């Protein structure tokens, strides 16, 4: 688009966009469908070794490790211990080997001798809280306030108790959320390309390319500025890949020792046991409502199951207005690996319980499920979004609007709702460069990694819009610490952090190019117009140059400008509502999600096509959390018994409902907001509510497996 405004950069009116806010094909599409996209796990460099970790097979142990037997295997090049003394959870790596082939590396890992003495452990919530339970670690009691020992809870407890007494209808329930895994398809790891000397390149599967040189430099024994990180393509992160992890550290240590490149990636078991989960939670809630639908009181007692970690911060009453609320926020530790950030850390767990409570209260006073939400949410965005999802899901024609189905018959259908919030704003620190070559080529560069969200395509779209070109005319360069500073991709900050830099760089480059072309086109710089692959003076659109011819007038070195973050081009504050329609088989307890609708705002949507994919993906992960996924620990052995993709059930082709992802077009903010997290929040609550709405079975424990449905149905009759 022409972008004739020469002042400070702005996204311009949506009606004027030619590239932005239009469905634009992912530029990495062809290489991905051809299997030619090279992920870090695909990288092979000459002389490369394959690494393998040796992991402890018990929950907590004191151990010694002898790596020498591995070295007796021909083809094993190095074997090193990684730690000594004790471990806190199953799967902790204690040694590593590297060999000429992956098969020999496995032989080597099997040959390492680990002598261990199991120690007392707890791996489930019940055992962690039992009197006299073994203490998880010496750092803190198993059950402790997340805010420290002085944390006596949030809110006014006496006022909350009074408000509960004054309520017309009160509910009390305990909500359980199982631990979910990120289950990225590309596992954690990296290739440390080091052949001796004082430089190295790390090809990592990471959400923070710029964080890797600092972490890798130590184990490699190099200066940080001599370590480069490349993340050309990445097979998913979802919050799990913020450090280089033990696999990365071990690869660097071994590469440094033998002066040969080492590639080391987790196997699937290690990925489950040690490399990423969303914390579980147990929430005991008591809440009261007035006859008119106002939620008057909520008392919550929350345990966050973050393993050896504390779990995330989100608390009740989530985003609802509750007159008086009091919340106790505890960490309940177990001998399992720490939870990590996962798409809106803490929010889906809290949302599931809160949305369930809202429905329970609504049914108690005979209120409409949409109306009670609007009554207790003040932001008008939620009101219009709830109305829209209700319309799309067919709420007004639905039979169970103020009372759930009775659980009789065979097949029952129900509808449920949920809402969410997230920041999604960016921050300073990143930079971008846009370069025009004399041959007409345009490159747009920023070091940021693309986890699969589609950032790479935005990196091309933004300058394309500015220069009147198509996204495919611009070469995006990303995922490399030798490019201008990127940003860590977490908390939905990526788009709002990098898009402003790209806009600024594009804008500056265009102004400089216009200045240069003014004499060629014999007009003032401000009248140089870029549109539809042409450049012309505003007053003489038919006497212009093609883009290529215009570029040919540039000096040999072309033209380049860098841009930095401009706060006004982004904002924060995303709102969304979702509705689910489910079918419950009352004979078997099986639940099938038939349809889900998301209405989501996120300011100016730069690429609606990839935006919809992201929202769909979030809903699908919610289906997993609601119905299928959950880590299963064996309490006596202390190990995870479903640490593989066969026994840990992810949503697959047979479980995908009709999905409708709608941009809330009444959000007219001319600024970008990230959308990675917000749509991942409300789905599980909406599905649990839909199940109850269908048949009257209130299941307060995720995942909602058929046995739980049958048990709840049995209690009804």
């Amino acid at each position, binding site marked *: 688009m022409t972008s004739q405004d020469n002042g400070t950069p702005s996204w311009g009116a949506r009606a004027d966009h030619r590239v932005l806010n239009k469905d634009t094909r992912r530029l990495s599409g062809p290489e991905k469908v*051809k*299997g030619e996209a090279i992920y870090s796990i695909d990288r*092979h460099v000459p002389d490369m070794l394959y690494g393998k970790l040796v992991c402890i097979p018990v929950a907590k142990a004191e151990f010694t490790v002898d790596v020498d037997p591995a070295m007796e295997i021909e083809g094993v090049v190095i074997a090193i211990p990684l730690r000594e003394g004790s471990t806190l959870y199953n799967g902790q790596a204690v040694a590593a080997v590297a060999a000429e082939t992956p*098969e020999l590396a496995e032989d080597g890992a099997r040959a390492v001798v680990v002598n261990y003495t199991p120690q007392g452990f707890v791996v489930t919530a019940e055992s962690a809280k039992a009197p006299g339970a073994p203490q998880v670690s010496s750092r803190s009691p198993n059950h402790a306030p997340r805010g420290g020992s002085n944390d006596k809870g949030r809110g006014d407890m006496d006022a909350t108790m009074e408000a509960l007494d004054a309520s017309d209808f009160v509910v009390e329930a305990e909500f359980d959320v199982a631990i979910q895994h990120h289950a990225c*398809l590309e596992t954690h790891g990296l290739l440390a390309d080091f052949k001796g000397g004082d430089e190295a390149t790390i090809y990592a599967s990471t959400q923070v390319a710029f964080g890797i040189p600092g972490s890798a430099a130590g184990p490699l024994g190099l200066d940080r500025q001599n370590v480069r990180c490349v993340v050309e393509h990445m097979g998913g992160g979802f919050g799990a890949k913020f450090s280089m992890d033990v696999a990365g550290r071990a690869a660097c240590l071994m590469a440094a020792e033998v002066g040969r490149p080492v590639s080391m990636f987790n196997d699937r078991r290690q990925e489950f046991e040690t490399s990423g989960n969303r914390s579980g939670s147990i929430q005991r809630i008591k809440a009261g409502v007035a006859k008119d639908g106002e939620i008057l009181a909520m008392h919550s007692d929350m345990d966050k199951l973050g393993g050896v970690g504390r779990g995330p911060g989100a608390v009740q009453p989530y985003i609802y207005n509750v007159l008086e609320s009091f919340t106790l926020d505890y960490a309940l530790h177990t001998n399992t690996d720490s939870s990590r950030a996962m798409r809106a850390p803490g929010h889906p767990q809290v949302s599931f319980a809160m949305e369930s409570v809202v429905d329970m209260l609504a049914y108690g006073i005979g209120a409409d499920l949409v109306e009670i939400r609007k009554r207790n949410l003040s932001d008008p965005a939620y009101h219009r979004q709830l109305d829209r999802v209700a319309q799309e899901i067919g709420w007004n024609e639905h039979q169970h609007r103020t009372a759930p189905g009775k659980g009789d018959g065979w097949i029952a259908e129900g509808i449920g709702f949920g809402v969410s919030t997230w920041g999604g704003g960016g921050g300073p620190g990143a930079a971008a460069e846009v370069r025009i070559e004399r041959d007409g080529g345009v490159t747009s560069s920023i070091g940021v990694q693309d986890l699969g969200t589609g950032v790479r395509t935005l990196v091309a779209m933004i300058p394309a819009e500015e220069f009147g070109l198509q996204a495919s005319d611009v070469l995006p360069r990303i995922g490399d610490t030798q490019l201008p500073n990127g940003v860590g991709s977490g908390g939905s900050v990526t788009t709002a952090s990098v898009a402003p830099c790209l806009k600024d760089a594009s804008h500056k480059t265009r102004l400089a190019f216009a200045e240069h072309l003014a004499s060629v086109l014999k007009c003032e710089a401000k009248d140089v117009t870029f549109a539809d692959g042409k450049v012309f003076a505003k007053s003489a659109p038919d006497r212009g140059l093609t883009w290529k011819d215009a570029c040919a007038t540039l000096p040999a070195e072309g033209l380049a400008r860098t841009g930095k973050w401009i706060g006004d081009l982004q904002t924060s504050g995303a709102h969304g509502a979702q509705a689910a329609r489910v079918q419950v088989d009352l004979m078997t307890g099986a639940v099938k999600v038939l349809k889900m609708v998301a209405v989501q705002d996120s300011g100016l949507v730069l690429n609606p096509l990839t935006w919809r994919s992201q929202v769909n993906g979030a809903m699908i992960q919610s289906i997993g959390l609601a119905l299928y996924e959950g880590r299963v620990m064996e309490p006596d052995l202390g190990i995870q018994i479903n640490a593989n993709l066969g026994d840990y059930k992810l949503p697959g082709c047979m479980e995908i409902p009709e999905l409708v992802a709608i941009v809330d077009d009444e959000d007219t903010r001319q600024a970008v907001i990230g959308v990675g997290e917000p749509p991942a929040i409300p789905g599980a609550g909406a599905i649990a509510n839909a199940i109850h709405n269908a048949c009257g079975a209130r299941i307060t424990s995720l995942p909602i497996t058929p046995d739980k449905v049958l048990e709840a149905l049995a209690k009804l009759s």
Partner: protein
Amino acid sequence: MKPVQDPEAANQRLSRRSFLKGAGGAAAGSVLATEMAQAASEAHTAEPEVLKGVVQVSFHLNGQPTSVQVEPRTTLLSALRNHHNPPHTAAKSVCEQGNCGACTVLIDDQPVVSCLTLAVRVEGRHVRTAAGLAQGDQLSPVQEAMCADDALMCGFCTPGFAMSVTACLEKNPAASEEEVRRACSGNLCRCGTYPHIFSAALKAGRAMLQAQKGGK
């Protein structure tokens, strides 16, 4: 360079009809091989031939003759990715247990998970991967539709889905969404591209039918 543990065995060629059993001995770096014809009748009596060390496996990869030298226990997935020269990484390694479909390749046009297929099984056979679907820059109908419908996000599951969908539509380009779902039910996508994969497959099927009509 990969070590060749037993140079004599390296020259051993498997016949097209070689048959394997006893893959459980993989930890020792060897498997048992015998003629398939004999296998049915003599499996319990014949002294099986033991493959050891490193063997050469010759096959066609996306139409081109090629070979790898691998220990008999090596999976086709590892052979392609880690032993083939140059490394062929179109098939992805995700679970190595047959659970995810990311490593799906076509062997003589049948979709198989290459992580549960020993490399020696493809002696003399035709292996197709996502890298062999396009004609140069001309994407196959499945690939083209997947790009158009944004049926890929991180893209790590994508080559596997492309192969499952291709196998399904080559048998029946008029496949319904239900049939596409079944054909891809062994493939997992964590990013959540499923709805776009289904729509792309239907679109590709229509394009293939159209091309067949045009071609006749």
